[in-house]
C-alpha cells in the first residue's frame, strides 16, 4: 500500500501543497514562539547570572519589618562575613533622567531601574567606565549605553524625575558605568545614587535588601545558618544559586506568558488547519472514490485503504512541518521586529533552533495532519467495492444525520464547559483557560458539524443581491455555494473560528468604550486629569500645589488609593478633599449623605455593602496600617465603582490606613469663563517641571483610551490574521477542488456561451459567498461569546454592553471582498479550461 500512498502524493501535488501551506504556517508560528522563548530565556538567564554572581548571601524582609543600618551592623559581625551592605532600589520607571530638552528617558518596553551604588567591588555587578562613583547628595551615575544613546555627558548637571513629594531633583552626572562584562542590560536603563541619597530620593525608610560577601573562612552554608539565626523568621536569606533561580524565574514567568500568548495564536491557527485539511482529504477521497472502490474490489482491506490515506497525511505532515520549521526561524525574526514595532522593546538575542523546537514542530505538524485525515481515512476505508463500478454522485463522503447529532452533542458540551468557565467562579487560571479553550474548541467543532443546516439558506440569502447584479453568473455562483452545504459549511467554518474571536474582541472593545463614555459623561464632572505616565509612578504632592495656583484650573481634587480589609473583605480605601467631591464626581449616591463624613465614618460602594450585608448607619471594622482595626460607620452608599472601588474616608483617617504622600491622580476643572486652551497651557507649564505627568482633558483621555482599545484590537486581529489567512487558503483549496470536480459542467457552460469573464465572476463570487457564510457565522458566534464575556466580567471592567454593528458589518464586507480575491486563482484555472477537454473529461 505504501506504493499507492507515494503515487497519490505525487499525483495530487498541488492540492496537497495548498493543504500543506496551512501546516507550514501553523508549525512556523509555533516554532517561532519556541525559538523566541528559548532565545529570550538564554539572554535573560545570562542577565540573571550577572546580576547575582557576586552576592554570596542576601537578606530581604518577608513581612512589614525594618531593615536598616542596625540590621546591617548585626549581620556584619557574623563570623565569616567580609562585608554586608544595605541596598535600595526604586520601583521601575519611578526615577527617570530628563534630557536637557525637557524630555524624559523612558524606553517603551524595558524599564528604567534605579538603585543605590554598592561600594564593595564584589557585591557590585557594575564597574565605573568613565568619571567616578556617586559619593553623596546631588550626584548620580548612569549606564554607559544609556548615557551615549541619550547624550548625557559626565560632569554636567541634569534633572531627574524621582518619587518624592517634590517629584524632581537636580544632580550632577559624575560617572558612567558598565554592567557586567559588556553592559548587556537587555534594553533597560540603569541609574545609581549613593546609598543615603537613594534612600531620600526613592522615599524609603528601609533597605530593600542586604547583600553579603563572605571572607572564605567559613562554609557559606554555615554563615547562612548564622544569618538566619540572627534575623529571625521575618526575613529570607538566599545564596547565589537561590538568587539566580529567583531572578531567572521572574524573567521566565514573563517570557513564558509572552511565549504562550504567541502559542495560543498558533494553536488557533492549527485548529483552523484541522478543518481545512479534513475538508481537503474529504473532497479528494470522494473524488477518488472509484479508485478506492477498485482497491477494495481487488482485495484491499478497509484497514489497508485507511493506512494508505493516513500514510499520505503523514508524508504531507512531515514535508509541511519541515518547511514550517525553516519558516519559523524567519518568522522569529519577523515577530521580533513586529513586536518591537508595537513597543515590546525586546533585547538583541540569539534565535536557537533547539532539538525541542524541532521535535515539537514536527510532532505537532504531523500530528495535526494525521488527526485531520483520520475521519476521511476511515470513510475511505469503508468505501464499498461496488462504488468502483457505480462511482458516486459528486457529493462528499457520507455523514448526514449522525454528524448533525454528534455536532449537537459537542456544541452542548462545549457550551457547558465555556459556561462553567465563565460563570462557575473558578479561581485557578490554568483550569479556567483549559475549560475555556477546550469548551470553545468543542463548541467550534459542534457548530461546524451543525452548520450545513444553515449553509445553503445563508448562501442563497447572501447570493440574492449578487444574482440581481451579475445575473446568471451571479445566480450560478449562489447555487454552487449552496449545492454542497457540507462542503461550504466546513470551508466557511475555518473562517468562522478566526472571525468569531475577532468579533468577540470587537464586542468587548465596544463595551469598554461605551463604559468609558458613560464614565466621562455621568460619573466624571471634572474636565481635567493629571496622572503618572508609568504604572508604578505617582503624581508628586507638589503638583497639587502648582495646580492650585494655576489661573485657569479650579476644583483641584487629588486622590489617593490604598488597599485594606473591611470586615474581612479586601477593599480599596480612597481619599480626596471632600469639599471637592461634588464638583469633580457624581458617584451615584444611593443612600445617606457625604456631609456626614468625618474621621470616624466612611462612604461605601453599594457593591461592597451588599456583600457585607450592611447599610447606612451600620459600622464595619477597617484594618489600619499598624494591623489594628477601627470601626467606621457607613454614612453614605454610592453605586459607581469606576472611580472609587471600595470605601471613601477623610484624609486624616486615610493616613492611619495608607502610607503614601504622593497622589494616584488629580482631577481638576476649568475655571468658569476660561477656555480649554488656557487650561491646557496651564497644565503644559506644570508638565514642563514634572515630565512624568500625563495631563489630559476628558476628551483627550477618551481619545487616548479609545485609541489604546483600538490598537489592542488591531494587534489581536493581526495575530488572528494567521488563522484567518489559513482559512482563506482553505477557501482557495476547496474552490480549486470543486472546479476540478466540475470540469465538465464548466466546459458545458463555456460551450453554450458563457464567456471567460462571466466564468471568472461566477467562481469568484462563489468564493465570496463561502467567505460571507463564514464571516456571518463568525460574527454571530463572536457576538454571543462577547455578550457572555461582558456578562461574566465584573462590572468595574465591563458593564454596559454595546454591539459594534458597523465594525461587524465591515468585517463581513471585508471577508466577502477577500473571498473575491481568494477566488481569483481558482477562477483563473476555471477560465483556462479548454472547452473540448472539459466536455470530454
Amino acid at each position, binding site marked *: 500500500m505504501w506504493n499507492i500512498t507515494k503515487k497519490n502524493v505525487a499525483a495530487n501535488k498541488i492540492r496537497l501543497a495548498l493543504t500543506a501551506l496551512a501546516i507550514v504556517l501553523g508549525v512556523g508560528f509555533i516554532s517561532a514562539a519556541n525559538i523566541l522563548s528559548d532565545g529570550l530565556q538564554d539572554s535573560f538567564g545570562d542577565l540573571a547570572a550577572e546580576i547575582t554572581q557576586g552576592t554570596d548571601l542576601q537578606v530581604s524582609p518577608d513581612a512589614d519589618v525594618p531593615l536598616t543600618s542596625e540590621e546591617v551592623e548585626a549581620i556584619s559581625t557574623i563570623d565569616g562575613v567580609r562585608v554586608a551592605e544595605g541596598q535600595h532600589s526604586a520601583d521601575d520607571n519611578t526615577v527617570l533622567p530628563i534630557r536637557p530638552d525637557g524630555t524624559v528617558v523612558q524606553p517603551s518596553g524595558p524599564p528604567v531601574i534605579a538603585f543605590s551604588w554598592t561600594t564593595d567591588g564584589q557585591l557590585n555587578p557594575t564597574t565605573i567606565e568613565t568619571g567616578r562613583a556617586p559619593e553623596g547628595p546631588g550626584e548620580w551615575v548612569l549606564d554607559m549605553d544609556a548615557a551615549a544613546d541619550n547624550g548625557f555627558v559626565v560632569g554636567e548637571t541634569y534633572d531627574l524625575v524621582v518619587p518624592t513629594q517634590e517629584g524632581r531633583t537636580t544632580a550632577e552626572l559624575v560617572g558612567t558605568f558598565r554592567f557586567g562584562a559588556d553592559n548587556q542590560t537587555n534594553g533597560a536603563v540603569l541609574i545609581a545614587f549613593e546609598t543615603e541619597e537613594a534612600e531620600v530620593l526613592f522615599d524609603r525608610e528601609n533597605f530593600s535588601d542586604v547583600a553579603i560577601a563572605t571572607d572564605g573562612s567559613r562554609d557559606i552554608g554555615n554563615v547562612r545558618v548564622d544569618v538566619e539565626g540572627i534575623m529571625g523568621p521575618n526575613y529570607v536569606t538566599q545564596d547565589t544559586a537561590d538568587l539566580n533561580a529567583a531572578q531567572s524565574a521572574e524573567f521566565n514567568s514573563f517570557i513564558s506568558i509572552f511565549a504562550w500568548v504567541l502559542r495560543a495564536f498558533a494553536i488557533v491557527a492549527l485548529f483552523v488547519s484541522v478543518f481545512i485539511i479534513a475538508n481537503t482529504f474529504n473532497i479528494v477521497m470522494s473524488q477518488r472514490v472509484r479508485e478506492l472502490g477498485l482497491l477494495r474490489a481487488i482485495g484491499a482491506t478497509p484497514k489497508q485503504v485507511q493506512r494508505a490515506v493516513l500514510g499520505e497525511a503523514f508524508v504531507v505532515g512531515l514535508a509541511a512541518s519541515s518547511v514550517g520549521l525553516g519558516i519559523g526561524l524567519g518568522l522569529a525574526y519577523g515577530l521580533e521586529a513586529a513586536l518591537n514595532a508595537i513597543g515590546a522593546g525586546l533585547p538583541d538575542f540569539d534565535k536557537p533552533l533547539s532539538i525541542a523546537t524541532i521535535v515539537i514542530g514536527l510532532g505537532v505538524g504531523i500530528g495535526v495532519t494525521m488527526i485531520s485525515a483520520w475521519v476521511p481515512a476511515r470513510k475511505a476505508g469503508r468505501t464499498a467495492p461496488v462504488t468502483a463500478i457505480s462511482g458516486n454522485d459528486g457529493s462528499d463522503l457520507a455523514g448526514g444525520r449522525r454528524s448533525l447529532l454528534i455536532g449537537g452533542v459537542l456544541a452542548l458540551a462545549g457550551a457547558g464547559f465555556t459556561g462553567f468557565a465563565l460563570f462557575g467562579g473558578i479561581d485557578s487560571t490554568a483550569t479556567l483557560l483549559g475549560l475555556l479553550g477546550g469548551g470553545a474548541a468543542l463548541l467550534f467543532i459542534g457548530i461546524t458539524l451543525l452548520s450545513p443546516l444553515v449553509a445553503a439558506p445563508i448562501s442563497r440569502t447572501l447570493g440574492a443581491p449578487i444574482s440581481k447584479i451579475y445575473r446568471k453568473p451571479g445566480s*450560478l455562483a449562489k447555487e454552487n455555494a449552496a449545492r454542497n452545504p457540507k462542503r461550504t459549511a466546513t470551508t466557511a467554518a475555518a473562517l468562522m473560528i478566526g472571525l468569531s474571536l475577532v468579533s468577540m474582541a470587537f464586542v468587548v472593545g465596544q463595551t469598554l468604550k461605551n463604559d468609558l463614555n458613560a464614565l466621562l459623561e455621568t460619573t466624571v464632572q471634572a474636565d481635567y486629569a493629571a496622572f503618572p505616565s508609568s504604572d508604578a509612578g505617582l503624581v508628586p504632592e507638589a503638583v497639587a500645589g502648582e495646580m492650585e495656583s494655576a489661573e485657569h484650573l479650579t476644583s483641584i481634587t487629588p486622590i489617593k488609593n490604598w488597599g485594606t480589609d473591611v470586615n474581612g473583605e479586601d477593599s480599596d480605601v480612597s481619599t480626596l478633599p471632600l469639599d471637592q467631591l461634588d464638583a469633580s464626581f457624581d458617584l451615584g449616591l444611593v443612600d445617606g449623605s457625604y456631609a456626614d463624613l468625618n474621621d470616624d465614618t466612611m462612604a461605601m460602594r453599594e457593591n461592597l455593602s451588599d456583600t457585607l450585608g450592611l447599610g447606612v448607619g451600620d459600622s464595619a471594622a477597617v484594618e489600619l496600617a499598624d494591623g489594628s482595626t477601627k470601626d467606621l460607620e457607613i454614612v453614605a452608599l454610592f453605586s459607581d465603582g469606576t472611580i472609587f472601588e471600595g470605601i471613601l474616608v477623610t484624609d486624616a483617617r486615610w493616613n492611619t490606613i495608607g502610607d503614601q504622600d504622593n497622589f494616584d491622580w488629580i482631577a481638576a476643572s476649568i475655571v468658569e469663563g476660561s477656555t480649554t486652551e488656557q487650561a491646557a497651557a496651564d497644565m503644559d507649564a506644570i508638565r514642563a517641571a514634572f515630565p512624568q505627568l500625563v495631563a489630559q482633558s476628558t476628551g483627550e483621555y477618551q481619545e487616548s483610551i479609545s485609541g489604546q482599545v483600538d490598537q489592542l484590537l488591531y494587534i489581536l486581529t493581526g495575530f488572528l490574521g494567521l488563522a484567518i489567512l489559513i482559512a482563506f487558503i482553505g477557501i482557495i483549496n476547496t474552490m480549486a477542488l470543486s472546479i476540478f470536480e466540475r470540469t465538465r459542467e464548466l466546459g458545458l457552460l463555456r460551450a*453554450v456561451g458563457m464567456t*471567460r*469573464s462571466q466564468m471568472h465572476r461566477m467562481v469568484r463570487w462563489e468564493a465570496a459567498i463561502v467567505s460571507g457564510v463564514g464571516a456571518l457565522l463568525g460574527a454571530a458566534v463572536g457576538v454571543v461569546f462577547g455578550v457572555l464575556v461582558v456578562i461574566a466580567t465584573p462590572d468595574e471592567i465591563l458593564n454596559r454592553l454595546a454591539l459594534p454593528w458597523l465594525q461587524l458589518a465591515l468585517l463581513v464586507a471585508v471577508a466577502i471582498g477577500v473571498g473575491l480575491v481568494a477566488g481569483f486563482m481558482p477562477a483563473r484555472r476555471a477560465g483556462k479550461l479548454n472547452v473540448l477537454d472539459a*466536455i470530454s473529461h
Partner: protein
Amino acid sequence: MLVMEAPVRTAVAARTEGATKVYGDGDTQVTALDAVDVSFSAAEFTAIMGPSGSGKSTLMHSLAGLDRLSSGRVIIGDTDLSKLSEKDLTLLRRTKIGFVFQAFNLIPTLTAEENITLPLDLGNTRPDPEWLDEVVRAVDLIDRLGHKPNELSGGQQQRVAVARALASRPEVVFADEPTGNLDSHTGAGILDFMRRAVREYGQTIVMVTHDPVAASYADRVLFLADGQIVSELRDPDTDSILSTLRTASGR
C-alpha cells in the same frame, strides 16, 4: 467526391472551406479532418456517419466554434469563425449555435427551465415567451420545468438539452450522438422532435450518429472516413444507409 447541393435551398446556414485539422506532429501526427468542403442548407436535417475515429466529432466541434481548425475556414451564416476572437466566438456560440452532447448536457444546479434559457440568460436577453412555450410544449416538458436534472430521466434530460439548443433560435444546431445513451424508443422521440423542428420551424440541424435508424430521420446523410467526406445520401432510409455504410467501409 462532389458534394451535391439541393437546388431549391439557396440559404446556407453553415459551411466549411478546406477544413483541415491535424493533431500532434511528427510520427504521432493525425489528420482528423482532411480539407473538408461541406455546406449545410438552412432548414435541413443532416446526419453525419462514419466509423469511429473518422473525424465526425472533430468536424462538429470545428463547426460549432468549440475548436479551431489547423487550416481552412468555417462560416456560420455569414460569419467567418477563423477571424473571431475567443470572446466573440463565445458570444457566437451563445446566439447562433445550439449544441446537444451525447451526455451531460445540463447544469445540475439549474432547473430544466433554467437550463433551457441558460444561453439567453448568459446574454441577459429575454426569451421570446411564445417561442419558449412552443419549444417546451414540443418537447413535452411542461410539467417538468421546475425539476433539477437529477430528477429527470435520461430521455427527459436529452429533451431539455434539445429544447435549450432551440430556445435561442440559433442559426444551426449541432448534436453529437444525442441518442447514443438512450434506448431506441426514447431516442425515436428525440429524433422525431428534431425532425419536426426542421420541418415546422425551419431549424437547421446537423447530427452525428452511429445508428442507421437515427440517420434515417435526416434529410441527408454524409459519410465520413479518414477525415474526408466519402459519400452522401438524400432522403435516406435505413436500408440505403446500411448499404452505403457497407460500401464505404468496404473501400
